[in-house]
């Protein structure tokens, strides 16, 4: 059939959401110290690579169709998307892929500066398969939490228009769990060298995230009226959250910071995600201010509780995801005069549904992430060695440095690999790169 406006909107939305993951790479990558920037960005990039493949093969299939015990779809039903070829459903399948990708990429911010890249490449496809796909099925694919599901039928259907629970709460919880499993960075809370190395990159990332988020929130709009409301809310909430965050900083620290502005934008975007199609523009402004302010306060929690969620995935995504999800219990506009949130005079029904959905997402993600994360950590290990952490995760995991502005850290001879390109290398080299490939031969000649 001919392209319709709806098709075009979804395809563009999908491209926008795909762009969010590199955007996230910059948002996160700018926040690490310089010697961990590439590894940080690579955790997002490889998420695109691995989830892109998983989605085509079995991921999409698990998020729809007839479910297995209302928990997930049959992974073989649409294996390889084979049965979608020649249908317009491919458009929706593409859109869905981009959500799976960014969700897992979000988690990586919690383990900046110290994760083995190999371990992460194992974690990504497993987590998407075992946590994201089931949750997406439960909420959006006709499973447990949908109107027809066991829970959704019992306590009422929770509203999660664009992924407050499925994306942000689940990723935020996973981030917390991984941060606990990997432990704190050396110098956590003490070393000033851990301040962000490139704040313009953080701002670039926030800008690309915001841009892409119009597709994230808007792509599934069912009508022009709804699309317009979503657009306005996706602009208003982060704008207000930026202001909310900056005012909080101004009062608490004396200065509104650029990092705060970027963080506030993301907090507002996360908060409006589940609510974007169901609150008024003024509601979005209010939600934005509240989420910006609360997340600004929440970033201190990790120092109090002593877990090293390096880039504040918990304080931004989990906290704002919960705020947004629960906000619907208060400020959801009635549909055709019925239902809505407490502020519109409706009962607590919606709030209950929201709380239940959030709780299930939290529980599911916490348990599953703990299992996956611990299994990896206890076998191949999830954390790089202490020496590698000092010399830098970029060097140890990727044998690269992010920048070379012409300083003198470089010298010596250059050995293009051409000669040995097809030569056999010792087997253990590729099997245990983290030890034998680490070329900083400190102490070898001493």
């Amino acid at each position: 059939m001919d392209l319709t406006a709806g098709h075009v909107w979804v395809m563009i939305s999908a491209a926008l959401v795909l762009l969010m993951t590199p955007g996230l790479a910059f948002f996160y990558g700018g926040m690490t110290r310089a010697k961990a920037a590439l590894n940080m960005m690579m955790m997002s990039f490889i998420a695109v690579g691995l989830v892109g493949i998983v989605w085509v093969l079995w991921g999409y299939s698990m998020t729809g169709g007839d479910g297995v015990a209302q928990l997930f779809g049959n992974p073989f039903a649409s294996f390889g998307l084979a049965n979608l070829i020649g249908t317009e459903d491919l458009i929706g399948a593409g859109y869905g892929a981009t959500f799976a990708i960014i969700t897992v990429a979000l988690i990586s911010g919690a383990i900046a500066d110290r994760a083995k890249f190999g371990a992460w490449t194992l974690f990504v496809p497993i987590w998407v398969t075992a946590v994201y796909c089931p949750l997406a099925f439960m909420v959006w694919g006709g499973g447990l939490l949908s109107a027809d599901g066991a829970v959704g039928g019992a306590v009422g259907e929770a509203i999660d228009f664009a992924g407050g629970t499925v994306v942000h709460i689940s990723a935020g919880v996973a981030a917390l769990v991984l941060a606990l499993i990997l432990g704190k960075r050396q110098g956590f809370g003490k070393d000033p060298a851990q301040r962000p190395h490139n704040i313009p990159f953080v701002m670039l990332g926030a800008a690309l995230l915001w841009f892409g988020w119009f597709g994230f929130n808007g792509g599934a709009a069912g009508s022009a009226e709804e699309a317009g409301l979503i657009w306005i809310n996706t602009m208003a909430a982060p704008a207000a959250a930026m202001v909310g965050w900056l005012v909080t900083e101004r009062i608490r620290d004396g200065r509104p910071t650029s990092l705060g502005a970027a963080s506030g934008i993301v907090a507002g975007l996360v908060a409006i995600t589940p609510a974007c199609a169901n609150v008024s523009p003024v509601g979005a402004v209010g939600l934005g201010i509240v989420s910006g302010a609360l997340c600004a306060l929440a970033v201190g929690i990790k120092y109090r509780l002593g877990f090293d969620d390096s880039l504040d995935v918990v304080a931004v995504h989990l906290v704002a995801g919960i705020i947004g999800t629960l906000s619907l219990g208060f400020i959801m506009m009635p549909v055709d005069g019925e239902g809505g949130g407490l502020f519109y005079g409706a009962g607590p029904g919606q709030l209950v549904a929201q709380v239940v959905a959030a709780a299930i997402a939290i529980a599911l993600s916490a348990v599953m992430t703990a299992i996956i994360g611990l299994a990896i950590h206890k076998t191949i290990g999830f954390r790089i060695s202490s020496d590698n952490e000092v010399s830098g995760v970029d060097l140890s995991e990727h044998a690269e440095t992010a920048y070379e502005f012409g300083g003198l850290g470089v010298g010596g001879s250059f050995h293009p690999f051409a000669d040995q390109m097809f030569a056999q290398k010792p087997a253990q080299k590729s099997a245990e790169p983290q030890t034998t490939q680490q070329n900083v031969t400190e102490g070898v000649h001493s």
Partner: protein
Amino acid sequence: MKLVTAIVRPDKLDGVRGALENYGVQGLTVSQASGYGRQRGHTEVYRGAEYTVDLLQKARVEVLVADAWVTDIVDVLVSTANTGRAGDGKVWVIPVEEAVRVRTGERGEAAL
């Protein structure tokens, strides 16, 4: 007066500074350097080509001290910067004929 120069590991810089301050040093100058000694470099890979980075980053600490303090300061530097592995660095002492505090124009040991 003497100028004590220490080449140390960058991650030892904070420790060195703290120890010197505890000892009573009221000022110092730090700059970036790179070098090699017994310690050798590492390899970086770009599009399959290997680049050997022989010079490793170091911090250079310079302290102007009164003659009486030199031995102690050198000891403080050596003991705080030491890890026992190659790459720990070097400390050397140079004679200084005059020193001036720019702000006040004070000269000699009064300027330190």
